[in-house]
């Protein structure tokens, strides 16, 4: 559906996007993840024909973004960051305007607008001016605007920034709903968002793709080890040695003394689930008491930080 080949864009001396290539197939929800200024917005702006790449090509719905830019724009619904809207229009005339520019025949217009109002939950604000709306409703109007021509492809730039937690959940739900039959690219720097909405993730850092794959794939790419925390009370001194003898454990560290004589240890292992069981068995054999045993897998957050800070230090 979208095919990007070595896209590059520079502004003056800064390279905003450096030789990026990726593919998005039909029905996928791709998340662009990256720190601010990583090149997410610039990439999106090139795909929506707002900017022209310095080099490289991309096709969207089979059309070249430079040669066939009007065709591309017809197939895409784009919501820029912060959902800029014409504040001096009321919701319906705003949607009418977009429908007119998109060339939707006047016989279908009213029906489409009604459907957008329903889909995006705008019933209560239909007659209001866009400028008077809360941020959450503005975002919904923005989404309605991107959907009015029933596009195959949706490109959403940070669709949930600036919203309160309940609005974020609503908008995410809405994106999930409307993304069912569409190809979606959305950018964000909020990690749970990616885990909640995206089928595939592209981590962009300093204009380049740092990693790509499903959230699970990224986990293995980052070489993630699980952390197992265990708090043990024991009479003998050999607890750390015994723990490190458990197969699969790569490191044992004492991380703190708790009340009542418990000592907390941190174990590192690639196979956290099994190691947890072994720790329990060892405790039973040696007569230790345990009052804490839990495992933390590497979150997308850790992967993200690992990938985006690795390059800087290198």
């Amino acid at each position, binding site marked *: 559906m979208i095919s990007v080949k070595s896209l590059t864009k520079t502004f003056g001396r800064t390279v905003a996007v450096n030789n990026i290539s990726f593919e998005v197939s039909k029905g996928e929800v791709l998340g662009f993840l990256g720190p601010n200024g990583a090149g997410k917005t610039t990439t999106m702006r090139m795909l*929506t024909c707002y900017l022209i790449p310095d080099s490289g090509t991309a096709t969207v719905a089979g059309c070249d973004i430079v040669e066939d830019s009007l065709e591309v724009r*017809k197939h895409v619904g784009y919501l*820029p960051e912060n959902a800029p809207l*014409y504040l001096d229009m009321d919701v319906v005339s705003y949607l009418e*305007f977009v429908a007119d*520019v998109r*060339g939707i025949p006047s016989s279908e217009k009213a029906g489409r607008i009604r459907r957008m109002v329903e889909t995006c939950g705008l019933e209560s604000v239909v007659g209001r001016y866009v400028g008077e709306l809360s941020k959450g409703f503005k975002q919904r109007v923005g989404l309605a605007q991107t959907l009015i021509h029933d596009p195959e492809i949706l490109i959403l730039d940070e669709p949930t920034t600036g919203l309160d937690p309940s609005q974020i959940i609503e908008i995410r739900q809405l994106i999930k709903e409307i993304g069912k039959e569409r190809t979606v690219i959305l950018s964000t720097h909020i990690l749970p968002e990616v885990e909640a909405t995206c089928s595939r993730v592209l981590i962009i850092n300093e204009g380049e793709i740092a990693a790509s794959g499903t959230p699970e794939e990224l986990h293995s790419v980052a070489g993630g080890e699980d952390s197992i925390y265990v708090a043990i009370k024991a009479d003998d001194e050999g607890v750390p040695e015994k723990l490190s003898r458990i197969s699969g454990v790569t490191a044992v560290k004492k991380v703190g003394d708790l009340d009542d004589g418990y000592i907390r240890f941190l174990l590192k292992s690639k196979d956290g689930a099994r190691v947890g069981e072994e720790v329990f068995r060892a405790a039973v054999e040696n007569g230790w008491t345990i009052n804490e045993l839990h495992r933390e897998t590497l979150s997308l957050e850790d992967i993200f930080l690992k990938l985006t800070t690795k390059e800087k230090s290198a």
Partner: protein
Amino acid sequence: MSRTLAIFKREFASYFNSPIAYIYVTVFLGLAGWLFFKGFFLVGEASMRSFFGILPWLFLFFVPAITMRLWAEERKVGTMELLMTLPVTDTEAVMGKFLASFTFLLVSLALSLVLAVVVSALGDPDPGEIFGGYLGAVLIGAAFLAIGLFLSSLTENQIVAFIISVVTIFVLFILGDDFVLMGVPNWIAPVFSFLGLGAHYDSVSRGVIDTRDIIYYLSVVGFFLYLNVKSIESRK
């Protein structure tokens, strides 16, 4: 074409979505009427010539007020990104905006026909002169609008757009003025006199309709609209 029309409709309606349009029209007509009638009864002649003499000076401030918002606000609010990622060409967007501001100017001018009615009731003015005057006003207004619209695309600050528009239009307007021509070398005087927006206006508003003057104004409009398209493209 339908896309130009959609943009035109939105821009034109947005003048009337706020009180600005009404304030604008009222002040424009009030000022024009007052300045005109102040001298009218003194001279005691049923002619609108002095009205058309005042008009470019009113346009100097009123036209930039019409155009300052058109691109600067889009850039500031970020709707430019929205507009230019809709399936419209840069030319269509520029034309839609220009036509909207032009129509708004025509509406203000049409309302000033009240003055012509009053003058006709009081005396017997030359209809050819009034027609020529209005034609000149429409042409010079269109030229001012094209300049203002282009300059609005260069900044995201409406006030800056307004000020640079007033200054630019003023310079281009007085370029062909006798006062300026006296101060420049002889060889360049004809160039200034040809390029000046004011010199062409004088002959048209006197009722002397020369196709060269009309072509001149249309070229000025075309030239600045072209620059406008280029400046919109330059974002890429």
